[in-house]
């Protein structure tokens, strides 16, 4: 920890060469962009993998190379990349890094050097992960949950090297996330500018702050299970490995507990859902407020809901294990806690909706994405009540109902927020607007397309179609119409996947050729829009740090000429701007 001191001083110097400015940078904004670009790159790979899987499900046998091994490898890499390497990295490493210092009025993260290490460790973890595509046996096909014994025994593709690389990559990622997380939390606690009280922070910061705390406390569970599984695989310990046969032969394993792994995994895995969701909650609140020119409804309640969800998310993990063979009496407890968590979540939904109410709603692209998020999240959240209610989960677990549910809540919904947020904050990051027309097309295809993919998919689950099936055509209880539906879903998925090209094009094109945006195109009140330069330069605030006089949601204040009051406007300045009524 001692080097922090030096690093801190160093950060005050302006970087000069290209390398120190864009590669070995310690500037939180550059690090954020590095994080985001790596994450989006990984996400595109995961998207391509999902298209390949969908081809197999919708049109079995249509892809020559897609055998069962490849399918399960694609499935595993897709799930893991989407959850960890795309969404977690993008929300915390990307948005967290960019937004926190700007929104709380800091010059940078408090430990810039550690922050830089964080992104490089993240990069390393992605390299290790992708390397597994090129080792003998290929990447692991253990499913993203990596359940032992199957994950490390013969009969699962990639048990030779793929699983080892996967575990090592996860351990490196956790170290990266911890280094980043220390920064985000400490910055929020210790580096807020003058006047920026906790309850004057935008909900974006609250969401990311709480999500980071969850990450810091929950990732150790994945670390613990990863280390023990790695030892089971490499030196033959029996932490998780029971007495078993493999490939017809007795093994040396004895006494280990596969259920213990599941407990550890989901003790991480459930908070992980909220690590992705809470930043999305925060960002969507801010976007709604800005584009409907109205303060967030029930700000305090929103903060409390974020905190409550964060705390509760540590005592619901076993709802993923209702049919795991654990003591069935746990079901009563975990069903109850799970449904309790639905209450603060519902409050958030109400408050978003009530933010629109009596507003002045501008139908901008970010607002469209925000409303689409509410709708999708609502659908996904409500199906969560099915799965949380233990008895209903018993027929539905491990079917396509689950696949549809989690794609709605933690796949599509956060991704819609990512899109909305990029459209919203792009002008601050690059100084240019993104193209509205392309944005609209991108929005409509993505929103309607994903609903067409996942809404009907629930019914396949109710029908009983199991998930993680390479091919289900041989089952008699599945009618032909279900296979037709799968073909339809595949077509929708391919269209949605292809439509993302619009977004990538829009981003790249607008970054260089987009319309100049000026410092505050949306007339937003929060601090990040008030930087002296756009895009903000190293150190963010020029000579003097901003002083904060109000919360970030002063929109449409009666009697004030403008319909927004920036956070750094003082009472005197406000008086001068008042109109006589």
């Amino acid at each position, binding site marked *: *920890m*001692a*080097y*922090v*001191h030096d690093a*801190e001083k160093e950060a*005050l110097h302006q970087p000069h060469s290209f390398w120190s400015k864009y590669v070995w940078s310690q500037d939180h904004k550059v690090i954020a962009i590095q994080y985001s670009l790596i994450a989006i790159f990984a996400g595109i790979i995961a998207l391509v993998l999902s298209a390949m899987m969908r081809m197999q499900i919708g049109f079995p046998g249509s892809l020559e190379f897609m055998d069962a091994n490849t399918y399960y490898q694609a499935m595993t890499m897709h799930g893991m990349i989407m959850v960890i390497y795309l969404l977690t990295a993008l929300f915390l490493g990307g948005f967290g890094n960019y937004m926190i210092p700007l929104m709380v009025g*800091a*010059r940078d993260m*408090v*430990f810039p050097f550690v922050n830089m290490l964080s992104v490089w460790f993240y990069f390393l973890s992605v390299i290790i992960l992708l390397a597994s595509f090129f080792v003998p046996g290929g990447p692991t096909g253990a499913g993203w949950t990596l359940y032992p014994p199957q994950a490390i025994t013969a009969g699962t593709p990639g048990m030779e090297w793929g699983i080892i690389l996967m575990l090592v990559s996860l351990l490196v990622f956790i170290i990266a996330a*911890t280094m980043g*997380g*220390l*920064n985000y*939390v*400490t910055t929020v*606690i*210790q*580096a*807020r*500018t*003058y006047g920026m*009280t*906790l*309850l004057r922070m935008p909900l974006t910061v609250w969401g990311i702050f709480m999500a980071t705390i969850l990450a*810091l*406390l*929950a990732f*150790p*569970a994945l*670390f*613990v299970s990863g*280390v*023990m599984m790695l*030892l089971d695989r490499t*030196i*033959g*310990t*029996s*932490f998780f490995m029971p007495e078993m046969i493999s490939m017809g032969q007795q093994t040396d394993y*004895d*006494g*280990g*507990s596969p259920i*213990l792994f599941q407990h*550890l995994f989901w*003790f991480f895995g459930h908070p992980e859902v909220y690590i992705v969701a809470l930043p999305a909650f925060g960002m969507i609140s801010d976007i709604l407020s800005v584009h409907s020119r109205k303060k967030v409804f029930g700000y305090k309640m929103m903060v409390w809901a974020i905190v409550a969800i964060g705390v509760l998310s540590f005592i619901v993990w076993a709802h993923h294990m209702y049919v795991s063979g654990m003591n069935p009496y746990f079901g009563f407890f975990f069903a109850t806690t799970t449904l309790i968590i639905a209450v603060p979540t519902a409050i958030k939904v109400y408050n978003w909706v009530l933010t629109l109410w009596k507003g002045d709603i501008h139908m901008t692209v970010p607002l469209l994405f925000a409303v689409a998020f509410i709708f999708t999240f609502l659908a996904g959240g409500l199906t969560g009540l099915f799965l949380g209610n233990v008895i209903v989960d018993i027929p539905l677990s491990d079917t396509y109902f689950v696949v549809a549910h989690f794609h709605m809540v933690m796949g599509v919904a956060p991704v819609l927020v990512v899109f909305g947020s990029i459209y919203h904050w792009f002008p601050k990051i690059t100084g240019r607007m993104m193209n509205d027309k392309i944005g609209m097309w991108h929005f409509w295809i993505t929103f309607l397309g994903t609903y067409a993919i996942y809404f009907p998919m629930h019914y396949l689950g109710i029908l009983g179609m199991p998930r993680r099936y390479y091919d289900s055509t041989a089952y008699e209880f599945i009618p032909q119409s279900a296979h037709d539906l799968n073909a339809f879903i595949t077509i929708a998925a391919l269209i949605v996947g292809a439509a993302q090209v619009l977004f990538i094009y829009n981003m790249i094109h607008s970054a260089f050729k987009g319309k100049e945006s000026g410092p505050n195109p949306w007339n937003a009140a929060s601090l990040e829009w008030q930087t002296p330069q756009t895009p903000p330069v190293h150190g963010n605030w020029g000579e*003097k*740090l*901003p*002083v904060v006089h109000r919360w970030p949601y002063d929109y449409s204040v009666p009697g004030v000429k403008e319909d927004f009051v920036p956070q750094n406007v003082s009472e005197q300045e406000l008086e001068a701007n008042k109109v006589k009524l």
Partner: protein
Amino acid sequence: MTAAQLMKTSGFESVGGGANEWQETPEVIALRAKTGLRILMAVITSLFFLFIVSFLIRSQIADWEHLSAPWKPLANPWPLWINTGALVLASIFLQWSRISSRKQEARRTVETLVLAGFFSLVFIGGQLAVWQQLMSLGYFVSTNPANSFFYLLTGLHGLHLAGGLMAWCKTVVKAWRGMPIKQLSSSIELCAMYWHYLLGLWFVLLGLLTSSPETYAALVRLCGL
């Protein structure tokens, strides 16, 4: 904590209303480093907590052969107690160094700092010797889950101490290059916090590794698992 109090602890008090460069004073920087370290310690606590829970659950399965059972190598864990002694000394010397640095006694600060590092190395060496001894008796990592956990927990604790020693090295180098005691003291402060924490953690681990299987059974029942 109220917002006003928080602002106070965040160093707002010293600035008297204006937005000066209050953030960059050495005091504020030291405070931030401390906060960062505290959070790091919370993360490490979560890590070891989960290991310990796994340990307890795994210990309830029949194939567990406890290392401190009679006739087992840790029935009389005196080597571990010697190592513990070394770690305690390290902590004491660091505390001494911390106090001396506050009193601006440069020489004493550096001497005790070096001694603390020395005893930490003794601890790590001692732990390795215990490993060596266990292996020579045929207790390998994968022989029994009790062994696996022993190596895993002591090894990870040792790694965390080694990480601390890297920070310690930097501090010693700084001192050797003649950094004024005032600037040094914040680094020493951090080292001392971390070492005390690792000592406390070691006591917990030691207690866990050397207590009887009945204790585990009782603990597990207490947790309702």
